[in-house]
């Protein structure tokens, strides 16, 4: 078996607060392989962004990695600091955020930003970099790339800006791209364009993509495998088809069932009672047990449920016949 591009083992992130230490990410493990899109899905506050930021060393103090390992192409990167980490970012890991404006410098033309990034990371000349920049913009579908390369970010629409960000994230040919809610701020038609672009680039170049989103629909369309997060922990991990058609974790099942679907008609939506626990009031045992219809005493006891059968972190995984 080939080594995965990104491999996270037992990753934990801690934040000391006035009410005590909280763990927004708690013992999370997953891999992303070459040319694969791993969807990381969960409700807001589940720790998806925190886990992504931990990989690129962008945790804001006082949050810090408190345990576990992060491996990139067989090299351990979680102990890296300062300059080493900065070089890794951009060169080996590209980033795409929800708001394209946060990743673009409003004072530089997009051409300058692209060529700067390439010159820092690739052994090429300025002229070559500019040619490659135009090619990169064409590749992400910016019409008239040669003329628009000298425009400033604010001269583009939201969808076009996100394309520029994708070009920027990919221009140094990284082996991993972390896309944190890349389409959440966009309209459905633009979202469809951006997703299809991401999929195409990733499969053509063999880039590994960690696609963070709260939208199951996006996961279904784009991802190869999916990691479902709940309250900082991994709830379920598997191929998209398996997890979405026969979910084993009651949380995944509840999440799927509460999405309005055409096939359900207009009957009442399935509800997961309650809300995700606050980090300061994390329940013992399985974090989902207060909302879980199948919870028993074993779930409430202190030790966390294992990721049994490599799929769901649940003592009593749901059987296919329980999932209508």
């Amino acid at each position, binding site marked *: 078996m080939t080594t995965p591009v990104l491999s996270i083992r037992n990753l934990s992130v801690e934040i000391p607060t006035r009410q005590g230490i909280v763990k927004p990410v708690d013992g999370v493990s997953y891999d992303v392989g070459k040319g694969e899109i791993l969807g990381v899905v969960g409700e807001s506050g589940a720790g998806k962004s925190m886990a992504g930021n931990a990989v690129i060393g962008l945790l804001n103090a006082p949050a810090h990695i408190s345990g576990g390992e992060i491996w990139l192409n067989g090299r351990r990167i979680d102990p890296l600091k300062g300059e080493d980490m900065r070089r890794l970012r951009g060169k080996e890991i590209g980033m795409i955020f929800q708001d394209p404006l946060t990743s673009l410098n409003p004072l530089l033309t997009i051409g300058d930003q692209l060529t700067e990034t390439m010159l820092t990371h690739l052994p090429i000349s300025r002229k070559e970099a500019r040619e490659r920049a135009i090619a990169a913009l064409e590749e992400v579908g910016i019409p008239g790339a040669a003329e628009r390369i000298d425009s400033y970010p604010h001269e583009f629409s939201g969808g076009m800006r996100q394309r520029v960000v994708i070009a920027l994230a990919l221009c140094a040919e990284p082996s991993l791209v972390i896309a944190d809610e890349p389409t959440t701020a966009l*309209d459905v*038609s633009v979202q469809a364009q951006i997703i*299809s672009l991401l999929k195409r680039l990733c499969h053509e170049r063999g880039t590994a993509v960690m696609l963070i989103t709260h939208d199951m*629909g996006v996961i279904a369309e784009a991802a190869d495998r999916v990691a479902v997060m709940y309250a900082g922990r991994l709830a379920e991990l598997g191929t998209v088809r398996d997890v*979405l058609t026969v979910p084993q974790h009651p949380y995944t099942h509840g*999440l799927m069932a*509460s999405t309005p*679907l055409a096939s359900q008609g207009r009957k009442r939506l399935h509800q997961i009672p309650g*809300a995700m626990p606050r980090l300061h009031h994390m329940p013992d045992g399985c974090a989902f047990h207060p909302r879980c219809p199948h919870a028993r005493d074993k779930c409430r006891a202190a030790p966390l449920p294992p990721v049994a059968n490599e799929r769901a972190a649940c003592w009593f995984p749901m059987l296919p016949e329980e999932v209508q």
Partner: protein
Amino acid sequence: MSAYVTVRGLTRVFDVSKPWLNRVLEGRKKAFLTAVSDVDFEIEERTTYALVGESGSGKSTIGKMLVGLLNPSEGNVEVEGVNLMTEADADRIAASRSNIQMIFQDPYASLNPRWRVRDIIVEPVAAQGGKTEGLAEKLLEQVGLHASDAGKFPHEFSGGQRQRICIARSLASEPRLIVCDEPTSALDVSVQAQVLNLMSDLKDEFGLTYLLITHDLTVVRHMADRIGVLYLGRLVEEADPETLFNTPKHPYTQMLLSAAPRMDAFGREVPPPQGEIPDPIDPPSGCAFHPRCPIATDVCRKDRPAMRALAASKVACHLAE
């Protein structure tokens, strides 16, 4: 059944010119943005009418004109036979207005952080000098919260709970019509399900009429009795959900439906839609959709299509069939 709300020729133009001095110095003309252009629709009593469209299509502007937060530039809004634009009797207008309430998208910005939940909920009644004893507690229980939550402040609640508080406030004055502007867009799916179920229950319980504004097609399909699709401030198609989702007639509706992510579409490879929404300050001639439309012809570039009946739908397209 009768139309509770009738909207005719509703139009809203915003003056988006730069300040006077800049215009003179830079030699620019005044600029106008037509956010809503000649929109007609009717909402039957005790039904849910949904307006869908992408951002900037004028959904919120229509909602705000309905509740009186904005004045139309042209056109009429008629509620229970009272024309809110031309009616001279201020009391009748006030009476109609108090029958309309609104729920907003952002559950964080729509509650005053310095007010207790009790005061927030009863404000619509208290402002009119009505009796508010125990009202907040009763409404809180109706929307699935606790009577004891009345003394708390908004920051003590999650997004979904805040949206319930907003719903409680909108119910306080016993309205007949509630305009819901993206009520669940800021919520997670599991919480969205709770809020949508609550909205359905309240509709049955109080005989409410909803104008549901959203960009989320799954929500529309689940909730609406009738759907209007907006593009660049114009109504392009109107139908009931079955018809609209099974046989969309307008090319824009077809594009929108195919672009929406689907949970059963593993690795679906469909060509994504082309182009982007044009600048509303300088909209395309004729049919506003023609630059992106796969079947557009010359007539589309010249004439703006009128709404016409086509099978069970109404479509504003020259070529749809």
